[in-house]
């Protein structure tokens, strides 16, 4: 592992991002990013919810129920983006052999699974009053269900190995296989839906989307971004502490933590 990192540094001439490919250098940076993103997520989240729940006008057809989209849509976006990010870090890890890439990939997975679950859950709550049922076998919903299975499979596989390095590489490979399959599965779901004449989704928005709704949605989207980054950074720090606990640079970190807990 050390060899590949060193080789990579030589190959790419030690640019700044290689400095942060080392867990020791990345650990404090991740802490700063985490704190910043928690703050951003809190501020934007409160603002976005205020705009969405209190300021945005009531929808003419759907009434108050539609307001769940301010949670639903950003969560659905994050669910997809996080899978892509996971696949990206996995590819980087398999390609360059950098430990931190695998850690990032594994740190992202639970957040991604959570986002998928939130999207499915809020979708069901929206569907009950709108479509009259919690679940329809619609192409988008079905694809999200499968995306959730892919996240669960990734996490289960990563945990199935006693050897951390094997678990890292195995789950990275399956993340890539999944990433190739996601568009195919979506395509198949759309086709399947048209074949079986399932109910189609009510088209959202239309010409008369109020600007305040757009602002609320944008704010919530950024809040979700910040929340996901903060959660991933928090988790990657935990992973680093767990894996590098015997490293020399970790000693003062762990001691500082213990002291802070004592006081």
């Amino acid at each position: 592992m050390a060899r590949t990192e060193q080789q990579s540094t030589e190959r790419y001439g030690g640019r700044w991002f290689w400095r942060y490919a080392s867990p020791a250098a990345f650990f404090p940076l991740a802490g700063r990013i985490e704190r910043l993103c928690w703050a951003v997520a809190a501020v934007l989240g409160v603002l976005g919810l205020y705009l969405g729940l209190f300021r945005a006008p009531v929808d003419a057809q759907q009434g108050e129920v539609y307001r769940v989209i301010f949670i639903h849509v950003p969560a659905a976006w994050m669910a997809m983006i996080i899978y892509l990010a996971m696949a990206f870090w996995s590819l980087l890890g398999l390609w360059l052999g950098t430990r931190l890439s695998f850690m990032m990939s594994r740190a992202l997975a639970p957040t991604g699974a959570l986002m998928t679950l939130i999207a499915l859950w809020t979708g069901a709550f929206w569907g009950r009053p709108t479509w009259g049922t919690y679940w329809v076998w619609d192409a988008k919903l079905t694809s999200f269900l499968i995306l959730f299975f892919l996240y669960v499979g990734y996490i289960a596989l990563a945990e199935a190995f006693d050897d951390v390095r094997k678990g890292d590489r195995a789950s990275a490979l399956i993340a890539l296989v999944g990433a190739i399959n996601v568009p195919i599965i979506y395509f198949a779901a759309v086709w399947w839906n048209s074949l079986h004449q399932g109910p189609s989704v009510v088209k959202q928005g239309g010409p008369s989307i109020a600007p305040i709704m757009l602002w609320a949605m944008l704010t919530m989207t950024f809040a979700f971004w910040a929340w996901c980054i903060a959660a991933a950074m928090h988790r990657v720090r935990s992973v680093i502490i767990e894996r590098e606990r015997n490293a020399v640079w970790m000693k003062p970190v762990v001691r500082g933590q213990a002291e802070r807990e004592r006081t």
Partner: protein
Amino acid sequence: MSLFAAAGAVFRREIRLFARRKSDWANPLMFFLIVCSLFPFAVGSEAERLRTIGIGVIFVGALLAAMLALPRLFDEDARDGSLELLLTSPEPLAGLILARVAALALALASALACVAPLFALFYALPAEVALTLAWAVLVAVPTLLLIGAIAAALLVSARGGAILTAVLVLPLAIPTLVFGAGAAQRVLYGESPLAELALQAAFLLLALALCPLAASAALKISTE
């Protein structure tokens, strides 16, 4: 040339093993028969109802039976050490894995495809639906085995391998399930199944191109 010689040897060995130990392919087949027989007990035996669920039941049953055969790909070799022969061969591992999956597919897919039309008749489906279904199973099972080879290779030495293999592989088999069962459904509606069958074949080709490479990478990861 020597890749063909080595891959041929792998293929012949697997076929010989299937001929000598019939349980390797007969047990998944029995599983398939029993699963398909259970459904009428659960949903009732009216012909109309059976006809509605028949295609889906038979198709999913065939995929589950193929899943059960996946550990057969590498587990025994890992136990007796002959997996090391594959891994230390100078020939590309992906080609050897392809030969091995091909042997399993030949044994299992043909057996399942032979039995599937029989059950189509049990489920009150017309004969032309039964034939399309057999063809679709013949294409879907190798696709599933190819995708499954990746998971089977990753989980050679992991605990809880069989169930985890199913969790990883079955979601990825949805496209071939959709189009395979869809083709039979088309025939049931009196339409042409060609579009679905062509797409299903396209997935098989894609799996043929990508899965052996991924499986060889997977086997190196898990045995290192």
